[in-house]
């Protein structure tokens, strides 16, 4: 069993005006994650190191950052992923404006969420309940696993280095939200127009980067974005969706009844 060792943490320190990477030597113990090392650094060498975190169990999605350039939850990134002596570089999410150190301003995600037309269920059954079958619930439950860590937003090419696109593109997290409403067995709304016009689903060029970084393993591109594109394509032209629709042959495109 390996005894206590040290890790070199290379952490971005700064604010909106600018900043720099700084190296710190931090003792670590067996089994620790990047967030443990950041906390030890904060408690012993840099009390004012800004980090956002809550549950430290991969359930709340607060502690997102880029570790050696890859968007990750720092609470679920084990230090033994990295070789001994290899510095671990931690930088803030690049797609969002920095507030301080590793904390970014993620309000964009909350603003676009306000524009999503709300859930609109049909009437209850005569006995006052809603009946739904597990199979119908399963596919939407996949989207409900989203912990809003915004790693998918961070990695998305459309907004990562294109601040101007945020006006007309909501990003993968919001496509999941639209998809879960569109596919909800009880919902009666039709969000094809807002998902096209406001959320800009047509701008996604399905490189699947969002799916790759999702800590919940949600198949964002295949199960949410592509079906949304297909639903939109009936009314509007989207070359990629048109191609998928053509390549997918007789894939179901109808919306189907609201509930069985």
């Amino acid at each position: 069993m390996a005894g206590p060792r040290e890790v070199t943490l290379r952490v971005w320190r700064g604010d909106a005006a600018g900043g720099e990477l700084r190296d710190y030597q931090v003792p670590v113990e067996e089994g620790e994650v990047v967030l443990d090392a950041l906390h030890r650094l904060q408690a012993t060498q840099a009390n004012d190191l800004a980090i956002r975190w809550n549950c430290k169990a991969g359930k709340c999605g607060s502690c997102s950052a880029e570790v050696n350039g890859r968007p990750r939850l720092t609470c679920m990134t084990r230090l033994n992923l990295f070789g001994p002596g290899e510095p671990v570089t931690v930088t803030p999410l690049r797609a969002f404006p920095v507030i301080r150190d590793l904390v970014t301003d993620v309000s964009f995600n909350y603003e676009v969420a306000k524009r999503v037309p709300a859930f609109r269920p049909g009437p209850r059954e005569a006995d006052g309940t809603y009946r739904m079958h597990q199979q119908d619930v399963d596919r939407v439950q996949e989207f409900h696993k989203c912990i809003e860590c915004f790693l998918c937003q961070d990695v998305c090419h459309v907004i990562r280095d294109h601040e101007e696109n945020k006006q007309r593109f909501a990003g993968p997290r919001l496509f999941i939200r639209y998809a879960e409403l569109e596919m909800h067995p009880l919902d009666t709304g039709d969000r094809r127009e807002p998902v096209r016009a406001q959320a800009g689903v047509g701008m996604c060029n399905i490189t699947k980067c969002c799916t790759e970084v999702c800590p919940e393993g949600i198949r964002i591109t295949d199960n949410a974005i592509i079906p949304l594109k297909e639903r939109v394509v009936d009314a509007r032209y989207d070359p990629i969706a048109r191609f998928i629709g053509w390549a997918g042959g007789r894939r179901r495109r109808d919306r189907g009844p609201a509930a069985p």
Partner: protein
Amino acid sequence: MPEYETHEFDVVVVGAGGAGLRAAIEASAQGARTALVCKSLLGKAHTVMAEGGIAAALGNVYPEDDWRVHFRDTMRGGKLMNSWRMAQVHAQDAPDRVLELEEWGALFDRTPDGRILQRDFGGHRYARLAHVGDRTGLEMIRTLQHRAVSLGMDVFMECTVTRLLTDAAGRVAGAFAYWRESGRFVVFRAGAVILATGGIGKAWKVTSNSWEYTGDGHALALWAGADLVDMEFVQFHPTGMVWPPSVRGILVTEGVRGDGGVLRNAEGRRFMFDYVPEMFRAETADSEEEADRWYTDKKGARRTPDLLPRDEVARAINSEIKEGRGSPHGGVFLDIATRRDAEYIKRRLPSMYHQFKQLADVDITAEPMEVGPTCHYVMGGVKVDPDSQAATIPGLFAAGEAAGGMHGANRLGGNSLSDLLVFGQRAGRYAARHAAGLEGRPAVDPGQVDAAAAEALAPFERDSGENPFTIHHELQECMQDLVGIIRTEAELESALERIAVLRDRAARVGVGGNRQYNPGWHTALDLRSLLTVSEAVALAALERTESRGAHTRDDHPRPDPELAKVRMVVHPADGELKIAREPLAELPEDLRPLFEEGS
């Protein structure tokens, strides 16, 4: 007074977990101008970590279930120390609150005929927990979050309340807060304030709680002159992770046992059969064969002792470890691998599967987990009226974990999420009514505001003072060692002395850097509430010279019939905390037969 960013609302809700969100939704629906103020981003509150489910007598799996059975289970789980009226209201309202979530978009797991599926949990006679795999809390918070957003209410995210404001008559007049992002101050003027700030677990070293659980609501209430009750009752969940050290305390859902997992000691023995208390003997299996049969035959067999209430299981695990029959890393084994197939485990417990795989290199479909008790929940909280959730000062309300009385001496699993919904809704309704009934808004005292600002800024004037993180760590050691699962008079007195010393040191704490997103500063301010609630727990624990529910005194190992009749009230007077005994409300005549069946 200097200019502060100031907002006026009818109702200000502090905290945006399940209780706060539900309260804000209701207050808003009642027509009150409502603000939701939370320390974290919206949707990140501790509710998100709840795993097992929401207890509600829907009767979908067992039609025999109804609110009376749920009420009885809750009271027995709480060793009859609960506010009976809160337990009754809770059991009666819970089914409607769950169905309402479904109307707002929540998707629970289903029965074969398409209704909400319910799961077995400790202390519940019937399978009663509406759930979504093992991530029920996430489903609940997201549903409430979307609902709140669709109502268009004002949300103040990453904004920490440090003081309640009161008028000359002692009525609540608002709250004083700072933005975490900028460090700037905010004054809320309000007709009513609802405390929905959750628990106090961050006062202990081994805890399942997130950083936010620093007892803010409990402390804010005391500082404003309101009372707390039942603070000696702190729940240690029997199954937290124990290895590696980095994850010690992270929760392992009771759903593992509800779905067939069993506890074993180092000898492989199912030791829970040795720890069945008299109160539960008649309804607990006395052989492994009967216990195993119970999972599929609720009528022909009695429940497994693995699913006794949490206080019983936590104490049993503690004894096994103490007597040298623990696992290599100081826990016991929780085994589902030999009892259910891998596919079933991954489908029912996906988060647990990933949690162990990623954080501990343990495949729970092939190996047992190592688990041990972890500080999880405080039954005690703000003393409230059982119907309206009104605290003991006008205009103040509390709901969820921040409120006391509902769970008595021990909370049953699944009763927390339902508590948040039921009492969140009630607090929202009655706070809105209170605000609407006021003639003019209570006046904010500028002196209080300036004092709150000066208090918050003081740590910056001592930039060579004590390290706030060090004091927090020492408090956690103190509470873990001296105010843990098993307590004694000498240890509790020693804890109170150490808390007093830590309080002096906290008054000298210093922070560097500036006010912008500065965790050192935030921790320095959190220390005030952590120290206040720690003292409240130790005082109440000292006063209860008996063992009952989650409160175990090694020097008073038996229950004392006299103390069954009183609850401990923590009351602020002359800048100090005092303990008073208050008679517990007696069960009304019509509910007594529920407890006289001989079972």
